[in-house]
């Protein structure tokens, strides 16, 4: 998703292999046939491994979702097709819809926070002097580079019930009931920690790219706006925002997809605790399928999750492709 919305060289490159070939002649003919096949030959390995190792599990997932596979069937390697029973059961269960609702709220809250905070930081970066800007950028890059599992472990330590620095700080600030607070003891506080972690991890990428996008805005536009008497807010709405809008739109979708399928963070922080109240769809599928060994059921829930993600993805790709016609 590049931000240069006004790339000039929109025309696709003309093929190199057309240059200077005399027509006719057996060698030339053979050469032409080879050139016609060459791109496909070059693409073959990539397409083959993608279709096999991505397509096959996808098909297998569909196949599993139509079966009744629990521990017994797994060990005895039995295949019991039950039609759409798994889907029916999932769609009729109250638990499933609660998880769906929770996933939507969770994704919404996270994405809104990520986008608002990133936009503000991106704009702030554009206003800062060089030293401060580099300092903040460095902090963001360090955060961005933190591996997910390392970050979740660190957050568990920050929010540890005993000796955790967050509880200590809250206690010192006068909120004494937080001194020995168990953060994954309640649904709300567990989600609070997970949200903070995900927002903290996601903001740097968006903020830094957004800042990079604002640097491509021609300075004359601001000068013109200033000449017309535009203040800070006005020049933002008239110049900056229209420029970064396509970027924001596409990134929002991307974040929706990423947050919706976030698994390691939730799994490692709470594992769905307390009482499976922090399970989102991917965790729910994982716990049902692998944890409770209802593989068919898990696959059916995965299938439904994939359906949601595919819809989101196709919207996202449409946005991106509309933006960059030269991409294809």
């Amino acid at each position, binding site marked *: *998703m590049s931000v240069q919305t006004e790339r000039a060289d929109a025309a696709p490159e003309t*093929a190199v292999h057309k240059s200077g070939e005399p027509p006719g002649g057996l060698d030339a003919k053979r050469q032409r046939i080879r050139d016609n096949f060459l791109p496909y030959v070059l693409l073959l390995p990539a397409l083959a491994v993608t279709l096999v190792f991505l397509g096959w599990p996808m098909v297998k997932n569909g196949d599993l979702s139509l079966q009744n596979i629990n521990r017994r069937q797994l060990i005895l390697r039995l295949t019991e097709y039950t039609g759409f029973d798994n889907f029916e059961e999932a769609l009729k269960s109250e638990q499933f819809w609660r998880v769906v609702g929770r996933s939507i709220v969770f994704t919404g809250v996270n994405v809104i926070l990520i986008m608002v905070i990133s936009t503000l930081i991106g704009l702030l970066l554009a206003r800062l002097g060089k030293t401060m800007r580099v*300092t903040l950028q460095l902090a963001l*890059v360090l955060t961005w580079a933190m591996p997910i599992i*390392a970050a979740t472990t660190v957050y568990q330590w920050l929010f540890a019930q005993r000796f955790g620095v967050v509880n200590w700080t809250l206690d010192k600030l006068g909120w004494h009931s937080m001194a020995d607070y168990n953060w994954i003891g309640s649904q709300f506080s567990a989600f609070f920690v997970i949200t903070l972690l995900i927002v903290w991890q996601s903001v740097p990428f968006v903020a830094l790219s957004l800042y990079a996008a604002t640097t491509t805005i021609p300075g004359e536009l601001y000068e013109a706006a200033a000449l017309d008497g535009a203040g800070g807010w006005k020049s933002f709405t008239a110049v900056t925002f229209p420029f970064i809008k396509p970027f924001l739109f*596409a990134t929002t979708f991307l974040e929706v997809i990423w947050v919706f399928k976030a698994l390691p963070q939730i799994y490692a922080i709470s594992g769905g605790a307390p009482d499976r109240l922090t399970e989102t769809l*991917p965790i729910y*599928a994982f716990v049902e399928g692998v944890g409770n060994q209802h593989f068919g059921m898990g*696959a059916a829930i995965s299938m439904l999750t*994939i359906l949601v993600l595919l819809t989101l993805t196709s919207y996202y790709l449409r946005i991106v492709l509309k933006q960059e016609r030269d991409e294809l």
Partner: protein
Amino acid sequence: MKRSRLGRIWPNATAIVLAIGFVFPVYWMFNTALKPTGDILTEDPVWFPSHLTFEHFDTAINAPNFWTLVRNSLTVTIVAVALSLLIALSASFAIARMRFKGRRGVILVFMIAQMAPWEVMVIAIYMLVRDADMLNSLVPLTIFYMVMVLPLTILTLRNYIAAVPKELEESAMVDGCSRVQAFRKVIFPLLAPGLMATSLFGFITAWNEFPMVLILNKEDHAQTLPVWLYSFQTNFGNDWGATMAASTLFALPILILFLFLQRRAVGGLTSGAVKG
């Protein structure tokens, strides 16, 4: 138009607060990993440890299987990234430089593949790998990681190849190079930065991957570092010093790579739409 004093101060003040807020968890990881246990489990946190110790790193490194898992992680990651670079190089050359029927479709396939919800497909992958009797092996992990990072590798590399002026290649061919030679001698050297940036993101993805290895490789000797780190806390309980030392060991290679390659990478990244 001169800004007021306040107008000059608040952006800097906000920036400092934000920088501290973002860096703090990373700092706290290093801080905890490096201070003696007596300074970790205290009534009041020790913000700036007076003396440093490597005892926690000792504990982490001497944990059972540590070096096996390091080897596993490195093997899986490096092989997966190298293979995907190799495959991507030929594919992205075709996409960037040639015109053929179905080109748009091919790009679309990779764009969709890049968004593939691997996290949600682990159950099916588990079944496939089990049926092939390959549980607790590094081979399926390597293959799936390779496929996982491949689409992004192709889409990013394509931009780097397209950025190399076509005339360079053409003049090499006029001078008598074959197409393969032109690629090897002209394009390839110019691609070095692109290859580095691309492999960085592949490396991060494969190094971080967690759900798949969690379910496929349950045996201790076949796991990778993310699972080790995830279970470290379970194994070591409240030994936060050792846990943070383990996190540090896991994060350090990525932090270093990232700081070195970040500037180049951001460009490639924004064009490929990834998150580390």
